[in-house]
């Protein structure tokens, strides 16, 4: 069911499975007793009045102690797991700061001096220390197969720690109701081999691509410079807006708009033209750009690998 792919999720799945089987045992016993009682003691015409039994002390003590005993078998591994998942990674872990925004994710790698947006890249089999906070309302970080949930709360720092076991793309989503587009606040985690991760880091550290003279992307850069884009978005060396995600490497991402759509010409087109219609409440207003300029702009954004 869970298909856990990290030490954190494996711990949780093991605990759930343990409780699940206790629950199945209790469920079967109680429902069987109930059904037997209903089948055996249905009223029959002419039967004598049942004996007015008021209780049975030994029996009642017994069925008080039995659940208590079962709970011990659940409580002990629970306490152990609470401390095991309390969020402290071993020395040398890679630190990632997650910042929630309505309705997108910002990731900072303070030791690597890079940032990412909505798509989190992590090296496989490396302990990760995740520190979380929010820029606005409460969000909750959740990647079902890797880790979470932990709430992102403005003014506080929450932590989880995990180590992803296998490479791959993992799906996640904000789990705490955070306003109009809560459903659209999604994320991806790319767990990569060390070399692939290093390549990605290098790419993020590089300056954004400069379009070739006379290319459509070059025209797009000019459109970007004279449009409202610069008020909210950063592209290193071009603009320093802080309201929306940094676009310095947007062309290299698999998805856009809070991991909501694949990063294609078509979705970029729809997104820039009318973002709030795709993502209710989105702060980016519909952009009034001529079709020609829009094509150029998209070409530029796609060139920012």
């Amino acid at each position, binding site marked *: *069911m869970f298909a856990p792919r990290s030490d954190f999720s494996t711990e949780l799945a093991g605990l759930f499975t343990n409780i699940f089987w206790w629950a199945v045992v209790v469920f079967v016993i109680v*429902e069987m007793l109930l059904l037997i009682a209903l089948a055996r003691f249905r009223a029959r015409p002419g039967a004598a009045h049942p004996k007015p039994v*008021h209780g049975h002390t030994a029996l009642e003590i017994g069925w008080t102690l039995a659940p208590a005993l079962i709970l011990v078998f659940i409580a002990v591994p629970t306490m152990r797991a609470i401390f095991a998942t309390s969020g402290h990674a071993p020395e040398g872990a890679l630190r990632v700061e997650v910042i929630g925004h309505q309705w997108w994710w910002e990731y900072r790698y303070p030791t690597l001096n890079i940032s990412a947006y909505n798509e989190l890249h992590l090296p496989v089999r490396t302990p990760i220390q995740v520190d979380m906070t929010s820029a606005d309302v409460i969000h909750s970080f959740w990647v079902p197969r890797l880790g979470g949930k932990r*709430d992102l709360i403005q003014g506080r720092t929450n932590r989880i720690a995990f180590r992803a076991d296998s490479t791959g793309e993992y799906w996640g989503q904000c789990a705490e109701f955070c306003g109009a587009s809560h459903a659209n606040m999604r994320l991806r985690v790319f767990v990569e081999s060390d070399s692939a991760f290093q390549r990605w880091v290098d790419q993020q550290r590089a300056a954004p691509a400069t379009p070739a003279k006379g290319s459509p992307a070059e025209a797009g850069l000019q459109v970007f410079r004279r449009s409202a884009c610069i008020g909210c978005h950063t592209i290193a060396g071009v603009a320093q807006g802080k309201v929306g995600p940094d676009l310095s490497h947007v062309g290299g991402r698999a998805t856009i708009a809070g991991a909501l759509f694949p990063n294609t010409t078509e979705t970029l087109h729809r997104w820039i033209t009318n973002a709030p219609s795709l993502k209710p409440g989105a702060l980016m207003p519909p952009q009034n750009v001529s079709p020609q300029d829009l094509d150029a702009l998209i070409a530029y954004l796609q060139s920012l690998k």
Partner: protein
Amino acid sequence: MKSWLTTTDHKRIGLLYFWTAFGFFLIGGLEALIIRAQLVRPDGGLGVSAETFNQLFTMHGTTMVFLALMPLSAAFFNFIIPLQIGARDVAFPRLNAFSYWVFLLGGLFLNASFIAGPLFGADRLSVAPDAGWFGYANLTSRQFSPGPNVDFWLLGLQILGIASLAAGFNFVVTILNMRAPGMRMLRLPVFTWMTLVTQFLVITAFPVITVALVLLMFDRFFGTHFFLPAGGGDPILWQHLFWMFGHPEVYILILPAMGIVSEVLPTFSKKPLFGYTVVVYSGVVIAFLGWSVWSHHMFSTGLGPIADSVFAGTTMLIAIPTGVKIFNWIGTLWGGQIRFTTSLLFAVGFIAMFIIGGLSGVTHASAPSDLQQTDTYYVVAHIHYVLFGGTILGLFSGIYYWWPKMTGRFLSEGMGKVHFWLTLIGMNLAFFPMHFSGLLGMPRRIYTYPAELGVTRFNQLSTIGAFIIGIATLVFFWNLLRTRWRPSNAPANPWGGATLEWAIPSPPPVYNFTVIPTIASRLPLWQTERHGPMTPLPDRPPAPIHMPGGSWWPIITAFGLPIIAIGALAHLIPIVLAGAAVVIVGIYRWAFEPFEM
């Protein structure tokens, strides 16, 4: 008409509570059906907008908790409790009427938000509360919720809190002081006991949410920062306050249903309740423990491992008294002569379904396991097994059981059984697949989900189940309505029950008891080893009975409260003051009204 507006008769007020709450139950159910219809397809569903969807699930939760389940229980408190303890009415009849009118007006105020949009220069269906029934800060701040939506919610809940508190004090006093001679505490029927425990929870839990709502009101109206981190406040404070109320609230919803089941099972198996004292004490223990578990709603907020361990432990303890009750109910059935009436079927359905909700509750109690489940559809499944499989099935059992007493007319058993089986099938089809949707990664409170998540099939099953529940409820509604044209032929004790309400005619006369009976045993109408049944009461009162007349002041005072709320909503101080004047004048005249007519 006038006699209903001014009534102080607990039986009439009980019926008013019943029909009003049932109306809100239908509205809340309709909201649920729209929610389920939207989720039948991934990636956009049937086109319900995010904004509308958020209002629908907020109002569904708020309506079901505050306007349907609590007042449906209150209908039985009103109608049945005075009869079970051998009283002529509640302790404060006019306060009782006041509670009802405040509840009705508070409910109308909340629901008016659906159509009030144009008054605020917005569309219809745009200013209803939309921050969830839990209203987490700091999403509820002016900055992130600028419209009147959250104002409707916080003002409406404050009005409803007044109704609950007034009724809570009223019933505590009634049960403690108005018992018939010989009705010692450990001779009280279990339903009365659970009501008493519930009302203690009401009068201790509602002040907590009232404080929270007042702080929120200050944040929104007067610029304070109790819950705003940007101003040095703390949004987690809201969660502590809300769940300190919210968890006892769960027991406020479930304990009355447990009381009903504890009445229905003995009657239909012709055996006294197995382990009466243990069932009563375990109810009290559940209530006490209910105060020490609130943070299990907050395991993902990062309280730290010590707090998580403590709250995981206390939460697990609740399983013990709950399990004891379930075993005692089965012990009651065991060795009896069970008559499979609709009421009994619903009571048994309660036991069978509540176990599922209880067991999934244990998986939440385990804090790390809960990290995976919290805020997903797994929790939605859990609460619906507890509040639908538990509370609602219990309430249905009570309705089939007491309807002849309340109206003198029988509900159709045939339609009742159709209602039961459709409900049981519908609820399992609706709520069981939600466990899987949640574990596979579907968060709650989302208006759409991607097909790639792999939960589409489960959502479709849930939607089909929800509509089956809808059909079942229509069958039930028709069953209720048609009793109006049925003969009033219910005898005093149609089921052979053992408690006092069955000693008087159905429906009871306005004075209830011709003479106040003297109680010698826990089962006054039954022959047990040591006690014979009590002697029947005379048909006519041997002496004139003095009954209180009606009063206009409760309803007039109640009207002051929504006026205050409307003033606050519109930011018009004069209207607030006018509403306050109505309340003050109403209470003053009420206090000096000669109540002997």
